[in-house]
């Protein structure tokens, strides 16, 4: 297929919600005369994704990430805008479209809880029209990539959270979808299990060329997998580009950590940068990017430095700071 595999233009979604005041009076009023309010969950976002890309979808809770994913998969109808995924309008949910996509939700499961995963996989193979021998081959291959073996023969309820997530991924990929929508696929997993799921997704993308759109609250997932990120806030697209570009945009300063041989008062660091932390021999400064080399040289000359590290501030802190700043400015303007 030539051109983008996902194309969203002015995509929006408005939910109509009823509101109820607390207490008996509120309950009676709610019963007799219901009040509704329109909530704009997604506000005219536009983006395209090329086949084979892995794109991270970032934003705080309630930003509109999951609503966008639901529109992209066809679970809900958009209120406005245009949307095309794998050559189809998702909300029409044609079988040819559904065979090309998959949605994995870290907090939901499709496999039957009280049966071994293999029973559900057999149903999925039949539903997607995969020949039995081919289904066996794919199950074997995916199980090997996911390091699953006898676990597939045990009831799902007896598996650990990590094993269940891997089995869910196997089920979601059995029909070899061209587009993967992953909503918090590492939610609740321990660090090792998160790393294994990330490695698997990167490997799967390399092998099959599948397109991946991933939401996650774990920045580790995003930094490990996504060369490109879409940052959404209050239903609007704030950034579409690389994580490095985002960091540069959000953080005009770099972080300089120093371990000093001697103790110095905070005033000693005036003129070197913004003092972020000062604990005994450890000091953290924020220094403008343009003056980094000059300031670091001056620090080395002025103090007896045991260790020095220059880095970008953690991206989750930058994003969190940005959202807090935007939230407070939008409240102030109201």
């Amino acid at each position, binding site marked *: 297929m030539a051109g983008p595999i996902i194309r969203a233009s002015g995509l929006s979604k408005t*939910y109509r919600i009823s509101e109820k005041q607390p207490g008996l009076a509120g309950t009676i009023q709610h019963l007799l005369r219901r009040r509704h309010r329109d909530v704009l969950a997604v506000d005219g976002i536009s983006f395209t994704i090329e086949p084979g890309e892995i794109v991270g979808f970032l934003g705080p809770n309630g930003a509109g990430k999951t609503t966008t994913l*639901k529109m992209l*998969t*066809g*679970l*809900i*109808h958009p209120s406005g805008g245009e949307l095309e995924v794998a050559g189809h309008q998702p*909300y029409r*949910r044609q*079988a040819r479209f*559904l*065979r090309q*996509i*998959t*949605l994995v*939700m870290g*907090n*939901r*499961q*499709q496999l*039957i809880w*009280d*049966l071994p995963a293999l*029973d*559900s996989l*057999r*149903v*999925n*193979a*039949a*539903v*997607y*029209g995969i020949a039995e021998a081919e289904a066996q081959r794919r199950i074997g291959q995916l199980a090997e990539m996911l390091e699953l073996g006898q676990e597939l023969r045990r009831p799902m309820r007896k598996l650990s959270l990590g094993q269940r997530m891997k089995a869910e991924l196997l089920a979601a990929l059995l029909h070899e979808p061209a587009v993967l929508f992953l909503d918090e696929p590492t939610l609740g997993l321990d660090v090792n299990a998160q790393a294994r799921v990330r490695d698997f997704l990167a490997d799967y993308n390399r092998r099959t060329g599948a397109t991946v759109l991933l939401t996650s609250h774990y920045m580790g997932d995003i930094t490990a997998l996504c060369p490109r990120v879409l940052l959404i806030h209050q239903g609007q697209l704030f950034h579409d580009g690389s994580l490095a570009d985002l960091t540069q945009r959000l953080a005009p300063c770099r972080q300089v950590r120093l371990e000093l041989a001697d103790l110095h008062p905070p005033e000693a660091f005036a003129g070197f940068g913004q003092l972020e932390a000062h604990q005994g021999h450890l000091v953290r400064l924020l220094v403008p990017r343009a003056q980094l080399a000059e300031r670091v040289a001056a620090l080395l000359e002025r103090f007896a430095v045991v260790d020095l590290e220059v880095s970008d501030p953690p991206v989750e802190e930058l994003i969190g700071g940005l959202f807090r700043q935007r939230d407070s400015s939008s409240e102030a303007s109201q």
Partner: protein
Amino acid sequence: MSWAWRVARALLGSQYALMLEYRAEIALWALSGVLPLIMLGVWSGSGAAAAAGLSAQQLSHYFLAAFVVRQFTVVWLIQVFEDDALQGRLSPFLLQPLSPLWRYLAAHLSEQASRIPFVAVMLLAVGLAAPGLLWLPSAGALLLGILAIVAAFLLRFLLQVLVTTLCFWSERAAALDRLLMIPYLFLSGLVAPLDTFPPAVRRLALATPFPWMVDFPARLLAGEPVNVALGFGAIAAWCLLLLPIGHWLWRAGLRRYSAMGA
């Protein structure tokens, strides 16, 4: 092997395996479906059946047959659908190229298959407790009775699909189903054979889908004289009426679906 046959086999196989996991629960459900046996006790002691022209044997055969029909026409679609929709389990099913309704249908059929041994044991217990009460229907009556039970189940399932689609508009559509239980109980023949109804009420009942869900198959199994063509024709007519309405409501409902909980 066609796609549909393979899907049916896989769905029924997995759902039957699942129902066997819940065998203790299913035994309790089977036990809870003894209303016709209770009604048999009530009617036997009252003498009202004789006044309506039914012999003691006709009465006992009818209620035992109604007990069997009830066991194999239980539909719980709305409860499980409502729960799946609220808990977000419906969304993954909606993203597969197969309507979730086929999964629920397979679950019902599998549950009924897993009930067979429990119902057989309960009938055996009735036979041991009251040896004269059981009878062996003729091969023809048995075959027609089974077909009528399957048809009655499909009609009941379709009717509940209609109410179930209301879950897309209301988060508590199961309450509507409980409302529907009242006409079902009284007009289907579960609490009294239709022959005992006053003529006007009987005519009213026959104009609804309910008597074809219990009274018709029960009378076939009990060996009562029944207009077979009328019974199957009425079920077919109701199904043909409900099918397009259910299809339209389902599609309209999906447009409203907000995928809550997912």
